[in-house]
């Protein structure tokens, strides 16, 4: 049956409008609803009037754009966002650059390395053809302070270099040939130098210190004796290698930000052992990591430090001692069992004198020197005994 033909009654406009505006009393509202449920004609009118009312109502102004507006795609907004991002990146870069140049003017200098007087004469690279094993003194070679360093560089234990060379050769030999003489683990002049540099860096708690090694030759390196002579004439450190091995020159830029400021070391390695380069790379990584050590809890600069693997000891300028077991990320104060201030920190000779291959199994030790000259030793950096 057609609705149009139904004789019916319809609600007045006044009633429909009052229903639309919600001003009807409840009984009339229910009556209107009942009629609307039956009458499609009135329903149509009501919905049409409501639609027209909505069309007339101004869109509510959004006082605060919602967060979704930010993610609505439009070319202009994307362009604006990209421009802002580039501008911010530029500002940050320039600010960092200005800050660095203002705070610690980075100067790339070749470190002056002087041979210790008690070192044996170093053979020039050309003469280093025979793989004569070098037996360097196990004692730390005295190295002159790095040119730019305002503080004297403490002689670092040569065990550092020892580690460097040993692991250096290990990794390289894993990729090439593992024929490395045990003598390569002996401290050498070069090892001493690297250790001294590293020790200097660690002693000065140089943040941002870096050591880069670049293999200048593309030829694959052959395993060689690690006894690398140190060229004393110039800063480049030349490591003599076995004959018939390609020559490799490595550059070790060392940058220090606080006390050392910036140092660029050039280490020329002639036919350096493959493992040595890797070890130096590892050492370089260690230095980089070390350069990211966090501030000491006392917020004072570090006056001395020593590290054995990830275990590090540092003394601030007030003479307080701190221990880190995770490479300098977190520090804990060590309860002083001594009188006075801690002035020097070093690895104890007991651990330094262990052969490199056995060293990993031996507990490394630390030693500290107070301002009164008393030496204390500790195996873990926490419990100390007077020497």
């Amino acid at each position: 049956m057609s609705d149009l033909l139904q004789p019916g009654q319809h609600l007045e406009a006044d009633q429909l409008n009052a229903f639309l505006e919600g001003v009807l009393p409840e009984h009339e509202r229910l009556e209107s609803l009942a009629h609307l449920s039956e009458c499609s004609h009135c329903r149509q009118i009501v919905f049409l009037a409501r639609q027209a009312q909505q069309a007339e109502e101004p869109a509510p102004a959004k006082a605060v754009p919602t967060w979704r507006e930010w993610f609505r795609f439009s070319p202009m907004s994307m362009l604006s966002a990209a421009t802002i991002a580039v501008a911010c990146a530029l500002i940050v870069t320039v600010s960092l650059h200005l800050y660095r140049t203002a705070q610690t003017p980075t100067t790339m200098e070749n470190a002056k390395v002087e041979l210790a007087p008690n070192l044996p004469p170093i053979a020039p690279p050309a003469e280093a053809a025979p793989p004569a094993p070098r037996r360097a003194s196990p004692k730390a070679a005295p190295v002159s302070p790095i040119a730019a360093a305002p503080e004297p560089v403490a002689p670092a234990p040569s065990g550092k270099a020892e580690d460097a060379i040993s692991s250096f050769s290990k990794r390289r030999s894993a990729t090439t040939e593992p024929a490395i003489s045990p003598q390569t683990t002996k401290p050498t002049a070069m090892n001493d130098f690297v250790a001294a540099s590293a020790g200097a860096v660690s002693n000065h708690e140089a943040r941002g210190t870096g050591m880069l090694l670049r293999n200048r030759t593309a030829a694959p390196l052959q395993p060689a004796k690690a006894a690398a002579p140190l060229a004393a004439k110039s800063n480049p450190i030349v490591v003599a290698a076995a004959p018939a091995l390609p020559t490799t020159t490595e550059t070790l830029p060392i940058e220090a930000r606080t006390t050392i400021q910036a140092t660029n070391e050039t280490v020329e390695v002639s036919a350096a052992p493959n493992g040595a380069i890797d070890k130096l790379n590892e050492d370089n990584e260690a230095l980089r990591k070390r350069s990211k050590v966090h501030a000491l809890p006392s917020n004072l600069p570090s006056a001395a430090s020593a590290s054995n693997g990830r275990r590090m000891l540092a003394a601030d300028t007030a003479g307080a001692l701190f221990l880190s077991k995770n490479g300098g990320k977190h520090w804990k104060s060590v309860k002083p069992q001594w009188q006075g201030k801690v002035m020097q920190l070093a690895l104890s000779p007991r651990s330094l004198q262990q052969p490199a291959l056995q060293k990993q199994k031996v507990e490394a030790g630390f030693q500290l020197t107070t301002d009164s000259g008393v030496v204390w030793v500790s195996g873990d950096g926490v419990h100390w005994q007077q020497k």
Partner: protein
Amino acid sequence: MDSASAQPVELGPPATAEGAAEPQISATLLDALWREAEADSLELNRTELAQKLLAVGAKYNYGLPPGASATPAQIEAFYRSLQLRELALAHACTVGHDAAWQQFLQRFRAPLTQAAVAMTGSSSLGQDLADSLYSELFGLSERDGQRRSPLASYSGRGSLMGWLRTTLAQRHVDHHRRTRREAPLEDTDLAAVPTAPTPTPEVLARLGNSLAEALRALAPEDRFLLSAYFLDQRTLLQIAQLLRVHEATVSRKLKRLTSGLHQQLLKRLQASGMNRRAAEEALGTDPRDLTINLRNLLQTSATPTFSNQTEGDKTKPSVKK
């Protein structure tokens, strides 16, 4: 029947149907209402305003249910709840005061045209619709030698603009229904749907009866929801805005309604002698196999509707015939 034909109210002196009750508005209250309505600027005197207020109050029983008697406080509250300024304006226009017409044109000319354009979706059609309503409002149509204006039916309970909008919608729907009769059928060729096995006539009869009973038992608001959503294809948002509830509320109600209807049908079918499985199979019947008319079912309820209630109530002209 067109809506427009049900609107006319005679211009001139107000109807005296409620004259028997005569003034129930005190002079003080009338004076206050007259001032509030700013009737002076419309050249509407107190007597004219009082007559209109009395007519509206009697028509809607002062907002009370039929049969209830209103106290003076309720009467005053009802008067004060009216849109007095707009009621006075509409009444002054109905009476024919020029000042009122000027105000009316100044205030409602542009919004009315805008509403008409929004309804028709066309500027020219909207303009035509608004112009035709203007002429009607002005009382160009005459009956028994007297001008008649739909403005006389405005009661002041809602806004005058809303009343004009609804009147426009009435005229537009009337026009649309008139012209729809002349529209040719669309030449669409629908693909046949694979048919399920047709249930027996007995099952169909049981299903039809159960469905009719279930729909008739629904409350008016529920039937309105079903009608608006399923028959008129209105959106949840449209229905929600009309009922002044949240869209999710309408959705929940509809879901509850349909599931409730399903359960009721199952029960009724089982009560008629079918087992549950057969009842569920019967509910899966293609609706086209049913001979029932859902529209008719929804339009006939057990509870008396507003139109049915007011059918014999001649004192309530809110329902037009």
